[in-house]
């Protein structure tokens, strides 16, 4: 029987109201997406220019209202889990065969991310009201953002790996759509495709992990997996963890799959703030923290993740040091900071990694929105070389970004100091010196590029741009100030620091101050000294400018060289060999039938014709007399009779 009862939601009996609110918090953005993307008409017109939507206000306002309502629901629901409680909602099977998978689950981990998503989502939507003013296609923009929020909620709230994967791909689609918002720009279109395909490589691993988990545990639900994790054979467990890690590496833009994130900066800047720095790219971290029960049983995979994270942290930070595009500096910084989180995860410090997710989300979205304000006021200029001296024209943005940059640098008192400190502490305790050393080195470099950014944008003299900057509207300024406040306060709300680890704190404090000091010296105090450094270390700079040559190797050797050539080879082989064999057999059949036809005509029919010709040849004397004329016959008869008579007479 086709059972429709399967979709009836089983609300959590202990928290009926909170479960409803939680479901509502998921439904609101879904409804908003539907209303925005499918609720209006497509513009019709004879020429395509008329089909562009005129700027509208309502999409933005509607999505801000929905996001605010959704935040209220989430807060109420999350308060229930404050004392370590959980909410779970079960909805039966989605794809039968791997156990029931439709379930929502809220514990401290998902609650933290849920609130983070809702707060930053609301800030970004508010900011977008000002940033997107006057742009066409507002429905597509805000609809895409709401769709992202809905899918990210599905990702965060789902209680099973399978449903999480649906959200995982959903945010990928949202990211694709928003990177390609300006789809007429070839670079944006290319970046969107690239992001999706590179992510797919990770997704392939994730899919295999889900299938393996489903068969090993009988279900992909987190609670079942946690309970059954001890019984999974070690080989399978290592396989599952490695595949999960591949998925996380793709989504969180870690080496070697990090190349899509800098290109994704082709999307509008608020999109980069929400999706490509604060929330979606941290989904990989969330996935691995969720899988802690599995990862603790496969420490060898954990160490791999840590090493990968350390390499990525260093790679991102060094490249950020040499980048001149303001958004790409921040993109590489994101890659580097998530590398830090991965570094923590692998050595069993998932809580530290998660803490850094939260603090990073605030300061990085602040930095991105600040960068957005700068780009907006400079009419689209993104090159640091052409900025400078903006602190007087944009004081609010300047101070807010200062707070963001100093938080990134790890200055004590600001939130990221605490989270970064926890990670470095875990690194030292883990006993892997390599990881701790890379961690400290990266901290110094991070502080340098963070302050370099501020120096090049706001300090010094005005360079290059001659346009008068746009004023920043209040809807853009207020979110910046709120996020800056969060950067300061969040660290103090949860201070999980062990004050006896003062040596590490001293170390990271030194790293931060050293880094900011170096940046101050070279970029503010003595800009000329930088030229000397630039000249002396030119090869290193070229290496960093070219992003460690990774992108070039991928594009030229891997894609062009291997994949595309293999594909071309396959296509040629298809026409020449596989289809060639078919056409050759057709040709052969035709030749064979031609030959047999000619054999038939000449040999077999020849024999027949030979027989007939012979017969005809030998029959001519008879034919000659067989004229059919009675006179001839009479004549021959007469001649014969006379001859016979003659013979008789001559005897």
């Amino acid at each position, binding site marked *: 029987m086709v059972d429709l009862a399967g979709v009836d939601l089983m609300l959590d009996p202990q928290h009926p109201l909170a479960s409803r609110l939680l479901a509502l918090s998921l439904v609101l953005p879904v409804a908003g997406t539907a209303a925005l993307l499918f609720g209006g008409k*497509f513009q019709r017109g004879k020429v395509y220019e008329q089909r562009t939507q005129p700027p509208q206000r309502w999409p933005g306002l509607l999505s801000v209202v929905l996001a605010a309502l959704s935040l209220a629901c989430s807060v109420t629901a999350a308060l229930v889990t404050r004392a370590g409680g959980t909410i779970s909602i079960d909805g039966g099977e989605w794809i039968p065969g791997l156990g029931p998978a439709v379930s929502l689950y809220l514990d401290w981990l998902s609650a933290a991310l849920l609130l983070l998503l809702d707060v930053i989502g609301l800030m970004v939507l508010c900011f977008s009201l000002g940033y997107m003013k006057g742009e066409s296609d507002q429905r597509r923009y805000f609809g895409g953002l709401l769709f992202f929020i809905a899918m990210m909620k599905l990702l965060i709230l789902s209680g099973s790996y399978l449903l999480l994967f649906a959200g995982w791909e959903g945010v990928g689609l949202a990211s694709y759509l928003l990177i390609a918002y300006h789809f007429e720009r070839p670079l944006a*279109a290319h970046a969107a495709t690239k992001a999706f395909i590179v992510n797919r490589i990770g997704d392939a691993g994730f899919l295999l992990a889900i299938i*393996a988990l489903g068969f090993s545990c009988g279900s992909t639900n987190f609670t079942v997996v946690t309970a059954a994790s001890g019984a999974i054979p070690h080989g399978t467990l290592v396989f599952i963890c490695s595949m999960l890690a591949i998925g996380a590496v793709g989504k969180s833009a870690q080496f070697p799959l990090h190349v899509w994130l800098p290109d994704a900066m082709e999307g509008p800047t608020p999109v980069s703030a929400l999706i490509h720095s604060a929330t979606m790219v941290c989904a990989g971290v969330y996935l691995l923290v969720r899988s802690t029960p599995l990862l603790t049983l496969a420490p060898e995979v954990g160490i791999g993740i840590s090493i990968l994270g350390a390499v990525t942290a260093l790679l991102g930070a060094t490249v950020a040091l040499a980048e001149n595009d303001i958004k790409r500096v921040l993109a590489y910084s994101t890659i580097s900071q998530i590398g830090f989180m991965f570094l923590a995860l692998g050595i069993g410090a998932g809580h530290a990694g998660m803490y850094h997710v939260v603090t990073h989300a605030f300061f990085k979205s602040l930095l991105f929105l600040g960068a957005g304000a700068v780009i907006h006021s400079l009419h689209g200029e993104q090159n640091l070389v052409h900025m400078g001296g903006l602190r007087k024209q944009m004081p609010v943005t300047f101070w807010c970004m200062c707070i963001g940059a100093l938080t990134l640098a790890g200055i004590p008192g600001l939130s990221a100091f605490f989270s970064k400190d926890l990670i470095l502490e875990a690194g030292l305790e883990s006993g892997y010196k390599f990881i701790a050393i890379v961690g400290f080195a990266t901290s110094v470099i991070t502080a340098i590029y963070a302050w370099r950014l501020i120096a090049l944008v706001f300090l010094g003299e005005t360079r290059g741009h001659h346009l008068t900057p746009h004023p920043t509207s209040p809807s853009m300024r207020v979110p910046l100030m709120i996020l800056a406040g969060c950067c300061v306060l969040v660290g103090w709300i949860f201070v999980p620091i062990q004050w006896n680890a003062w040596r590490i704190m001293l170390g990271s404090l030194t790293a931060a101050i050293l880094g900011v000091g170096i940046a101050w010296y070279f970029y503010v105090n003595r800009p000329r000294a930088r030229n000397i450094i630039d000249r002396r270390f030119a090869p290193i700079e070229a290496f960093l400018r070219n992003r460690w040559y990774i992108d070039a190797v991928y594009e030229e050797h891997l894609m062009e060289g291997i994949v595309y050539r293999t594909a*071309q080879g396959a296509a040629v082989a298809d026409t020449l060999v596989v289809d060639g064999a078919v056409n050759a057999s057709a040709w052969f059949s035709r030749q064979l039938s031609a030959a047999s036809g000619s054999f038939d005509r000449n040999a077999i029919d020849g024999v027949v014709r030979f027989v007939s010709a012979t017969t005809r040849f030998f029959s001519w004397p008879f034919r000659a007399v067989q004229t059919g004329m009675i006179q001839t016959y009479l004549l021959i008869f007469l001649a014969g009779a006379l001859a016979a008579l003659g013979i008789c007479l001559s005897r």
Partner: protein
Amino acid sequence: MSHLLSLVVFLPLAGLLVLLFAPGGRFRLLRLIANAAAAITFVASLFLMPPFVNGAARLDASPFQFVERAAWIPSIGAQYLIGIDGISLLLVLLTTLISLIAIMASWNMNPDRTKLYYAMILLLETGVLGVFVSLDLFLFYLFWDVVLIPMYFIIGIYGGPRRSYAAMKFFLYTLFGSVFLLLGFLGIYIENGRATGVYTFELAKLAQADLPFDVQQWIFWALFLGFAVKVPMFPLHTWLPDAHVEAPTAGSVLLASLLLKMGVYGFLRFSLPLVPRAATSPGIVNVMVVLSLVAIIYGALVCLVQRDWKSLVAYSSVSHMGFCTLGIFALNFNGLTGSVLEQINHGISTGLLFLLVGFIYDRRHTREIADFGGIARVMPLFATVFGIAVFSSAGLPLLNGFIGEFTILSGAFLANRTWAAVAVLGIVLSAAYLLWLFQRTMLGPLRYDVNRTLTDLTTRERVIVLPLVALAFAIGLYPAPLFQLLRPAVNALLVQVHRP
């Protein structure tokens, strides 16, 4: 005994008869008759659903419903024996829907020779329906070959510039396969008759014959040639791109959505139960799986370098059909169920892709990918629907394509992890060729001025794509009913295959 199933199968044929008696010059009348016949058939086929929805317990005992049996040629043991289980039901519904859509998509065709055109589509529909409902080998073979003729004419008369080459290639290639199919069927018929003394073509009886392994083996390969050409499996696939590129839009849709399914269905319905010991022997399974995996990867790679929009979609079918055959030869519940689901989903999403290519070809009379670019600005609704089709075909969760591919992958994983690990690369590559196609045609700047005045989807075109888009979402969001529908049929099949 209800004759509903016969009615569904022969309604298109009845429509064809009406069509033949209608005056040839009255284009609108002919069109109306053809559309009505297909629509009535579709509605009638919906009445086949109730027993499957309401009678789960009965289905577990015997998955076949609407069985009709009549003596046909008693001297050789051939019967008119038809019936459907969950697998057949889904394919029958797909057939009636896709045929209706194909006929609707031909609304604005050139009025010349309309009569023959519609007649051929209706004949094709009866043939395909017959293939999916026959439970007698002789009857099945008859319908199997009936399908060839109308498709030959559809491509050969109404196709593109190289139509006669493509039609001939399609016809001869498939005929070549069906000769071996007939040989295999006769082999079973004779071997079974010799062993039991009863000469019959009835599938259920033949499936009980326990033939010696070597006999099963050669029969498997004979059937393989028949079915594999139709699927098409690597390396017997090269008729497909030619036939697809040259066929008119409706022809491509019918070919991709229905005709390819006949091959996969043949493996499921005939190869597995008739020669189970051969079909489950490691040697044969390995060959079949390797061919499937090659098709998945190779088909996708070839897609990457196609310059013609339609031939790209055609090669993507090779890749997707590789998933179907992989699922079958995983020989477990997930694999078989996934294979059926993938057939349905491929019918929906590839049908949609071919329809959309047809719509754009009607406007621009070119299918070169390089002739487009930036179309999303000009035809936003078209781009939206095309995007849905692309993501559905690329297997994005919450759309239909994912359900089948995921289930097949899990089945393959259960059988052998390596198979799943290779097949999953196909999912990466499918995203690559499809999104790249989308980028080159829909995104970027509008490069050609000719494209500036393209009109967006018309109301008729919207009506045509709507059911497919709706199904793509429905199956992707809530596939559980399909699984429940397929479970008794697939379980019965597994019992037959894995019997001791």
